[in-house]
């Protein structure tokens, strides 16, 4: 048994692979050491051995960063390294005199020693997720925290309790937790642990306020108008990349919405178009009746296929774009924080340089600051690489999905039109053939 594990846990990791709905979001750890910051000392214990004795891969970014590895060895990698599986399902509506809200069931399966049990199932509502995210941002300021779905729906017209809305949100929350669970640092955060396992979260919520919110502030207001001496090129490039990428995403989002709108209008016309063939069929004698009815049937089944396509696109395609827009926001925030930490360091260094002229020793807090900048840079770079990788997988999957949906749509229409050709040709023998 591994060190520090009170009891042995069954190896549930392998078993639950099938439960994971998003195979491309698997993230294998490129573990960076937790920065030595005041508020992070309580988490991220360095004992990364698994109960079953397999050490977590802490030092091989090369093995995981290659796309080929990732694609071919997905299953193997999971079996070896994934030890925390989280899913969000079963939304429930709660109506009380005060408020109406939705809770989601959060299921956890794990072999990690940090958890007392191998399995948890708790109910959480949106504000709990929000609490978790805030806590993560506070306690892990150097890391990229995945985004939550927007609190308020765009334009406010959408019914917050409608099935579609709840389902879209459930998917986004599921994604949020999975991204955290797959993160080599965030997944060890105490608040995450509490969020997954505590029966009642309210006590933790109250307690947290006082203890754990120093770091965020200390970073936030350090340098107002201070201009960075020299932002390292790679971080400048990240910022530029995000600026362009968010623009392109916005364009893609608008195009996708426009297509959905055009398709919806196309559908309206098709729904009127098909039945006209039917009413024509009623005016004709037998010879034309069947062919006209056939065409009406085809138009109708194409309409249904189109409706499915449009639904799929608005349910599966748009939310991913939105998530990434939010993700970019998170990333930009982290970049900003990094700049602030660096600015703080530079300011202190400058002050120290002045003092040095007075022949004094370099104060230790300057060194501390330098450490902080370096840790921040390392964390950020690791998160950036991970994010880039995730992004590529996600968009690859998203766009392939879009192509697949369209192919399926055309295949359904094709099958429908091909099936009426014998009917249209109206050869009695052909009819017989089509029946056999």
């Amino acid at each position, binding site marked *: 048994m591994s060190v520090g594990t009170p009891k042995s846990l069954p190896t549930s990791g392998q078993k639950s692979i099938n439960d994971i709905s998003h195979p491309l979001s698997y993230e294998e750890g490129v573990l960076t050491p937790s920065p030595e910051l005041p508020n992070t000392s309580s988490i991220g214990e360095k004992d990364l051995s698994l109960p079953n004795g397999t050490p977590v891969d802490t030092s091989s970014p090369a093995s995981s960063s290659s796309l080929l590895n990732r694609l071919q060895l997905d299953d193997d990698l999971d079996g070896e390294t994934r030890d925390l599986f989280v899913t969000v399902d079963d939304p429930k509506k709660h109506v009380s005199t005060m408020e109406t809200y939705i809770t989601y069931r959060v299921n956890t399966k794990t072999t990690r020693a940090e958890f007392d049990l191998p399995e948890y199932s708790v109910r959480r509502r949106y504000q709990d997720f929000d609490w978790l995210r805030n806590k993560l941002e506070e306690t892990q300021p150097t890391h990229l925290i995945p985004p939550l779905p927007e609190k308020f729906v765009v334009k406010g017209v959408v019914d917050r309790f409608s099935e579609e809305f709840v389902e879209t949100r459930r998917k986004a929350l599921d994604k949020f937790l999975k991204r955290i669970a797959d993160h080599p640092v965030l997944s060890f955060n105490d608040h995450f642990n509490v969020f997954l396992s505590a029966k009642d979260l309210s006590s933790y919520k109250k307690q947290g306020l006082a203890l754990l919110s120093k770091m965020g502030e200390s970073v936030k207001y350090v340098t107002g108008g201070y201009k960075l001496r020299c932002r390292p090129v790679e971080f400048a490039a990240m910022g530029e990349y995000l600026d362009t990428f968010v623009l*392109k995403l916005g364009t893609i989002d608008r*195009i996708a919405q426009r297509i959905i709108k055009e398709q919806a209008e196309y559908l309206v016309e098709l729904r009127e178009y098909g039945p006209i063939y039917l009413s024509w069929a009623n005016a004709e004698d037998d*010879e034309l009746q069947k062919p006209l009815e056939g065409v009406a049937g*085809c138009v109708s089944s194409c309409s249904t296929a189109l409706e499915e396509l449009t639904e799929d696109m608005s349910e599966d395609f748009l939310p991913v774009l939105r998530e990434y827009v939010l993700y970019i926001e998170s990333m930009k925030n982290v970049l900003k924080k990094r700049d602030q930490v660096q600015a703080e360091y530079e300011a202190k260094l400058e002050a120290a340089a002045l003092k040095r002229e007075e022949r004094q020793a370099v104060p230790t807090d300057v060194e501390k600051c330098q450490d902080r900048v370096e840790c921040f840079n390392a964390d950020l770079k690791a998160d950036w690489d991970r994010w880039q990788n995730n992004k590529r997988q996600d968009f*690859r999957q998203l766009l392939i999905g879009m*192509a697949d949906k369209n*192919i399926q749509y055309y295949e359904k229409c*094709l099958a429908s039109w091909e099936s009426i*050709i014998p009917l249209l040709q109206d050869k009695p023998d052909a009819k017989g053939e089509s029946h056999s």
Partner: protein
Amino acid sequence: MRRRLSQVQQTHDTTIYVSEPRMADSGSEEAAVIENPEVAPEEVQQDIGGTGDGSSLLKKMEISVSEAEKRTGKNTMNMQETYTVYLIETRSVEALNEGQSPAPDTLWRRYSEFELLRNYLLVTYSYIVVPPLPEKRAEFVWHKLSADNMDPDFVERRRIGLENFLLRISAHSVLSKDNIFYLFLTQENGWKDVVYDTGFQAKADSRLKALNATFRVKNPEKRFTELKHYSDELQSVISHLLRVRARVADRLYGVYKVHGNYGRVFSEWSAIEKEMGDGLQSAGHHMDAYAASVDDILEEEEHYADQLKEYLFYSEALRTVCRKHELLQYELEVTALDLVSKKQQREELATGTVRTFSLKGMTSKLFGQETPEQREAKLKVLEEQITEGEEFVKSKTLECEEYVQNSWIDIERFKEQKNQDLKEALISYAVMQISMCKKGIQVWTNAKECFSKM
């Protein structure tokens, strides 16, 4: 019926090929040939007529409208106008069968001359469902399609439509033998005068008269009432269909073209990506291709719309036949009624009783009886009128019966032609849809391949 139908079929098939007359070079018919355009029209007509019932002009003559040309000239008001003329080519089939390929006889006609020909046929063969002309102005267009009469695409579609019109007439067992039609194809100058000389305009029943008849016919024939009802239905359903089809085309166009924007944004996006760049870039090209493919799809679909339009206009032709029948029926009823009242008058005069209240009865009561001589004279006139009226009713009845008989033959022919044509149109529509789906699958499969490489 079957045979005639197959000819119509043949006509329809040739529509596609005939526009390239040099291509057609087959068959082994040895029918009499119109080879000498100088021959007096009457002889020619006899010549054609002599070959027997099922034959049509098409067997002897290859007809096509091969070209359209824009011209500018002065109209009757001496005003400058721009119009389109269409080149009609005719060639002897026999010469072709003998392996020669003689230069076709050609002449130019304007759309208005086609209209004149049709009006003439309509009046002269009122019992025939005369093939309609293609639309004068583009109707039921979706927004990308030009409604301009001079638009090259419109002119081209009209060229095909006019050719189809000529081929339909030349495949018709009766219309194809008409001399004016023959001259239309072969005599460029002075044709209009010949048409007007037939005096067909005088025979034309005014619309008002026909409309009047519609409301007054007492004993309409069931078959024609149903037919009229059908043609109304056909017209309304096809025009509805065409209207919605244009909107469907509009929307389809929108869906495809918006996808073209992906092409641009993927390409811009690819500039900031490393591993994903190539895949995005080439997927963008496929999106461009997808957006562009809708142009061909909708252009092809316009042909289907034209086929429907022909039957939209056919429904009007069908109604014209019904109206003519109503007019005849009405005239018959009026003469019959007149005869009845004459007979009644005669009876009154003969017996001296007034059965119904009439002004005449009043005056005779007020101003005293007529002399017997006067009565005799009146009776005599009445007798003559009655005999005349009986003759008239007889001839009208005959005319009516004959009309019903002849028109019904043509209506039956038309129905078969219609069923056949529309079925084919639906098949070609389905085939179009199938090819559209296949194109869609192809493009998205290509795009998917690019995405997979990302």
